[in-house]
């Protein structure tokens, strides 16, 4: 009897190859620093905060309706958005800018609050953190209506829309444009990417959202895992290229192997 469940063998192999690749690049040549392509969306965060400081207005961060943390596709996006939130909070604290988070995710509240609180602490201004900087609203449509209301009432200078967005993306993006806010978007929800692209000044598309934390920290080990990702892409590109040629010759060995 096979150890791995039938039909899941190749999934297992691909996962192990990926883990090994990432671990390999995290472990080798410890003295060599990896570089990552500049991400304009991340580089724009200080600009977004600086703009708010100049205008004397707040910065708004919101992760979209996303889903529960145990949701397989949305949970990791929320965490990636929180990685960005930490950096954003630090920049806001340094510049003395009010950061407002509007959050429809009850289970992520502890993470979000702790992340902001820690950032204030790290910048030496723990007393300036106010839990009211995090507004919780339950459910998608009320969350949208509250965020829309906040935007026109407080006119944030910059909006950071990173996380698992659904239909609210286009509404928030357009409402943000209406008040002339600078906007940075990011999501792995493919169905919302066009709207954030259309309404934001800068975007973190798909994988870039997950890699943002590594890019911000410039932590060598984290960048090593991104190197591993890139080599995984090379493998997938090679499989696709060879499979394409063999497929054209009616040889289906690659497809058969992938389907194992």
């Amino acid at each position: 009897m096979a150890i791995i469940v039938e039909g899941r063998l190749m999934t297992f192999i691909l996962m192990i190859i990926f883990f090994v690749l990432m671990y390999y690049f995290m472990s080798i040549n410890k003295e060599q620093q990896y570089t990552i392509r500049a991400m304009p969306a991340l580089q724009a965060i200080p600009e977004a905060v600086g703009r708010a400081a100049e205008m004397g207005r707040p910065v708004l961060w919101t992760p979209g309706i996303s889903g529960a943390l145990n949701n397989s596709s949305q949970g990791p996006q929320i965490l990636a958005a929180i990685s960005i939130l930490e950096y954003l909070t630090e920049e806001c604290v340094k510049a003395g800018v009010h950061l407002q988070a509007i959050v429809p995710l009850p289970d992520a509240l502890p993470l979000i609050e702790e992340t902001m609180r820690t950032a204030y602490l790290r910048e030496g201004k723990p007393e300036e953190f106010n839990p009211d900087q995090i507004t919780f609203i339950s459910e998608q449509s009320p969350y949208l209506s509250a965020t829309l209301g906040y935007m026109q009432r407080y006119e944030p200078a910059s909006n950071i829309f990173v996380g698992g967005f659904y239909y609210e993306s286009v509404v928030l993006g357009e409402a943000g444009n209406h008040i002339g806010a600078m906007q940075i978007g990011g999501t792995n929800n493919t169905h919302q990417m066009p709207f954030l692209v259309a309404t934001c000044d800068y975007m973190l598309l798909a994988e870039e959202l997950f890699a943002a934390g590594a890019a911000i920290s410039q932590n060598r080990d984290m960048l090593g895992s991104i190197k591993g990702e890139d080599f995984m892409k090379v493998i997938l590109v090679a499989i696709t290229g060879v499979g394409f040629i063999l497929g054209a010759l009616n040889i289906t060995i690659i497809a058969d192997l992938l389907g194992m």
Partner: protein
Amino acid sequence: MASGHYWVKSVDSTREAASKMSALSKLADIDRRVFYWILFIALMVPFLNPIGFPITIAPNTQDLYDGITGDQVDEGEVWIINFGYGVSAWSECHPAVTVCTKALFREGAKIIFIGPHYDVELTYNKLQDTCREDFATKEYGVDYVFLGYFTGGESVVAQLASDIASVFPQDHFGTPIGDIPMMDGVEDVHDIDGVLSSDTGDYGGHFMTQWQGPYGTKLAEVGIAMNGSTDLPRWQAGNFFGVSVGSRGGAELELLIGELGEATTAMDSISVSHLLLVLAIIIGNLGTITEKLGGKE
């Protein structure tokens, strides 16, 4: 503000000194509220004066219809219909779900209705209304059952696969699941012959990952048009046996079953609004091109 990376955003009219622009380049920056008013009024006109544009059937809709009719469904099969949409998306999803319910009932299938929206009961009631004649020939608890609301996203979809009663110990009306004749012997994924998920979100994707992928359950999607770009590749890849895309899919299904309904009526409004948008885009581009050619003073 540079937008060198992505790519397409343009400046908003309300913050620009439109008075300095030429007449044509002003077209590129019309206040959005002008469009909003025109759009809302234009959507109403076809309801008062129907036009009646012809509709053709897309292959994904045909596959969906074929998959729930004829030889594809045996009498007594148990199907799940997931109302993954709230009242706000009735106009988009409900016509297609109505046709699917009619088709499955007419093939003698038994249906379990569930839904992850609070207002699922309203949707269920609406279906009773839109499929009135078909429900009249069926008996609750024997031919269909309404298990009601569930929450928890993908985890619960996975749990449903292994034990339906653990998620729904009773139906929506409080009857223990063990007392419902239709649920006798229907315990897990192996006892379900097919799933139709109708979504504004991605419950179709959850059923794909947790049901169709591991167990090969027949799965089709009645998605909102927005999800078409996600759903159609899944249909092409064989994960979904068919897909209905938005109200257009609903109108096609109404045509296939031969009973025109709400989606067919709405298609005229859809045509008018799309035409309006294309016109707006052309006007916007005229302004942009004028600016490029030096028309901006």
